[in-house]
């Protein structure tokens, strides 16, 4: 049980009215944002027949499963079963929901209730997420740092790198860029990030060989 925050996605990658897949430890998540902008992170599985809710559709303040249209409100409570339109679903039918918070353009998730708010990085905001086929420690090393939040200059641009373990040899890399960064600086950051990914993956292959 982790009660610390994990960076799971960037706010800009889950716009209002959409759902996207995410991870928390070894669990799959459906991260979605309502029409009014509220974010939620749930188990990525419809309790009815196991369809991934990250493939679902958002209408208003509810997420519906794409398979049979079972509809769930903000807290994960089932509010509509279309095959049985006269039925008011019981409280018992709900999708497990995780703690979720946004700061500096990052969507943070946790299992349980962390004692503190997720970290904010003054002057920075979410820029780009990448997946890297290398463990978190190798990605951190390639960034010249340690841990899961590293301040580093990538090319000419200062950045914050949040590293999310996605399994033994896969990581998510969520990059934050200065709010004031010019478009050219962001382009350079993108190029540097892809170079970093190549180096981390090459380093990983070298180790495995």
């Amino acid at each position, binding site marked *: 049980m982790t009660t610390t925050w994990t960076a799971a996605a960037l706010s800009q990658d889950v716009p209002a009215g959409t759902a996207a897949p995410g991870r928390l430890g070894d669990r799959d998540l459906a991260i979605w944002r309502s029409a009014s902008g509220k974010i939620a992170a749930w188990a990525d599985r419809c309790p009815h027949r*196991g369809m*991934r809710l990250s493939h679902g559709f958002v209408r208003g303040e509810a997420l519906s499963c794409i398979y049979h249209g079972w509809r769930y409100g903000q807290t994960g409570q089932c509010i509509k*079963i279309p095959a049985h339109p006269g039925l008011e679903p019981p409280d018992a039918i709900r999708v497990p929901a995780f703690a979720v918070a946004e700061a500096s353009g990052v969507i943070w998730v946790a299992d349980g209730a962390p004692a503190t708010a997720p970290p904010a990085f003054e002057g920075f905001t979410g820029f780009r997420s990448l997946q890297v086929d290398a463990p978190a420690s190798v990605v951190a090393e390639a960034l010249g740092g340690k841990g899961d939040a590293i301040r580093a200059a990538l090319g000419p641009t200062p950045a914050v790198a949040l590293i999310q373990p996605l399994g033994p040899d896969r990581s998510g890399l969520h990059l934050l860029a200065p709010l004031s960064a010019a478009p050219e600086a962001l382009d350079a950051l993108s190029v540097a990030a892809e170079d970093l990914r190549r180096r981390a993956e090459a380093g990983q292959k070298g180790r495995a060989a």
Partner: protein
Amino acid sequence: MRHQWYPVGIAAKLPDSPAESLLLGERVHIGRAKGGGPQVTDAKGRALPVLTRFGHVWTTLGTPERDLFTIPEADQPGRRLVDVGTVRVRCSPLRAVENFLDIAHFPFVHTDILGAEPHTEVERYEVEIREDSDEVWATKVRFFQPQAAKSAGGGITTDYMYRVPAPTCSILYKTSPPRPGEWDVITLFVQPMTEELCQVWPWMALFDDASTMTDMIHFQQMIFVQDRSILENQIPAKLPLDPGLEIPTRADMTSIAYRRWLKRHGYTYGAQLVAA
């Protein structure tokens, strides 16, 4: 499930040189015998039993106790027989059949074709395991459909019957739009490649004099590609025979009857025995 017949190809489109495929995890080759007829060999090069029916070549790795099932309605004169082709799906072969038996997904997966909101209600229908034929049947199934078939001009309430005569085969009978007194026959024959990979071979025997063959094939392929996005994203990948982590309702009666029948016969290739 070794002693069952499985589809492995379209009889009219057999490859000139043997094509490799998988059946129940074992390598097989499908091609032509010297006389031009179908030939299927196992990994050791031995010829497996073959038969041709419903436009498809069928084979088995074991010794089936029964002949392959028949579909008497398909022999009625005036029907057009359609080899739809094949779609490979990263899912349990049993999940592919279960999805085919489901009507409640029509408004959400086949939107504005086989179903549309607000017509989402699944009325009570009848389900039984017929003891004489040892088949699963669902009858008196009714659903409103905006475009039930290529031949349908507009929305109609369509009557359905579903039949499962073999663990990876299902037949649906639905109101024929041009001939409301007759049933169109649409089948889903599934080749179990592994427990989590299958090749589906839909086949149809329709009353439709207006549509071109290409149109009818494209219509059915479009429907199946829509289903594939569901089938490859269900958790767990195998079909649960314990619904303890699911919430089946009366609308899922056909699915439950199918799973009961699999459980009773021990047809568990592609099944998950405990709730997961």
